């Protein structure tokens, strides 16, 4: 699959860090994204618009990660759910690129 634009949703509890992630995601030419503060908000966002990738960020426990995977299986079965580590620019690009590689998705 080849995409012109990658749509990313990021969920995390730390408001200031999520603001930084919002800036980083939307600062890339062919990435766009939205950040939300909880798994419930992530499910709501996924019911309103399609996303390619969901990043689970700080504050989201593994138990909630399992719940959101189950609920999104019906809502957005093709969404790629990965955990984001590091809270900034250090690992973000390689996490996204590795996820796209694993699903044989290319960005123009």
């Amino acid at each position, binding site marked *: 699959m080849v995409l012109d634009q990658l749509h990313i949703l990021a969920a995390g509890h730390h408001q200031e860090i999520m603001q930084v992630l919002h800036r980083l995601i939307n600062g890339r030419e062919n990435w766009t994204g939205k950040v939300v503060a909880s798994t419930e908000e992530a499910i709501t966002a996924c019911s309103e618009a399609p996303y390619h990738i969901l990043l689970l960020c700080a504050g989201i426990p593994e138990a909630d990660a399992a719940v959101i995977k189950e609920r999104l299986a019906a809502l957005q079965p093709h969404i790629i759910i990965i955990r984001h580590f590091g*809270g900034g620019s250090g690992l973000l690009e390689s996490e996204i690129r590795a996820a796209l590689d694993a699903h044989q998705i290319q960005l123009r």
Partner: protein
Amino acid sequence: MATHTLHKADTRGNAEHGWLNSRQTFSFASYYNPERMGFGALRVLNDDTVAGGRGFGTHPHDNMEIISIPLEGDLEHKDNLGNTEVIRQGDVQVMSAGTGVFHSEYNKHADREVKFLQIWLFPNRLNVSPRYDQVTLDMAAMQNNLQQIISPAPGSHGGAWIHQDAWFHMGAFEKGRQVAYDLKKEGNGVYLFVINGSFTIDGQSLEKRDGLGIEGTAQVSITANEDNSQLLVMEVPMQVTQKS
């Protein structure tokens, strides 16, 4: 059967920003190499040189164990936990980012570079309370000896501690000195990074800033090939799992 993965110094990523030169053993920021995504729980090994008076402005981290080891010069750290500290050669700094922390790191001096290793490990527990610590190492104890500098438990024979079943050791060796490193936990691997000089490790020659990852072994044999050869030994879990 042990497997060895050699990373020669000149095959690392290289980010040149003028004020910062960063040599990256594993994928980091805009350096992406799918073959270099880490070694078990060891995710980042950056060999950074920061120009005088310059540094990293305030930025966030979460869910990562971050270890800084100054090699030359002094690095000033400030964070939103209230810590303002300077770390120098002979110190090691650890930061458990956990639920989130903001910090800055600047070269303390305007007239000389600071060189340091920036190392990130995945934590064994998600969303811990952020924590900062630094310790001054016993440099004399590192002469011809691997001295523990990081461990998983507070008060475990020196050094600092982190939220991961990882042990770091450092040592400086005279030419011809031999030492064995015995791994502490089954399922762990070991990543060896040559800070200075040269070594032969399990029959593999390593030069300055080369790295060697070894999996499936209980012991590693190390021989220094020149005087003042300095080695960092990082034992880490090869399977990364986190508790919430």
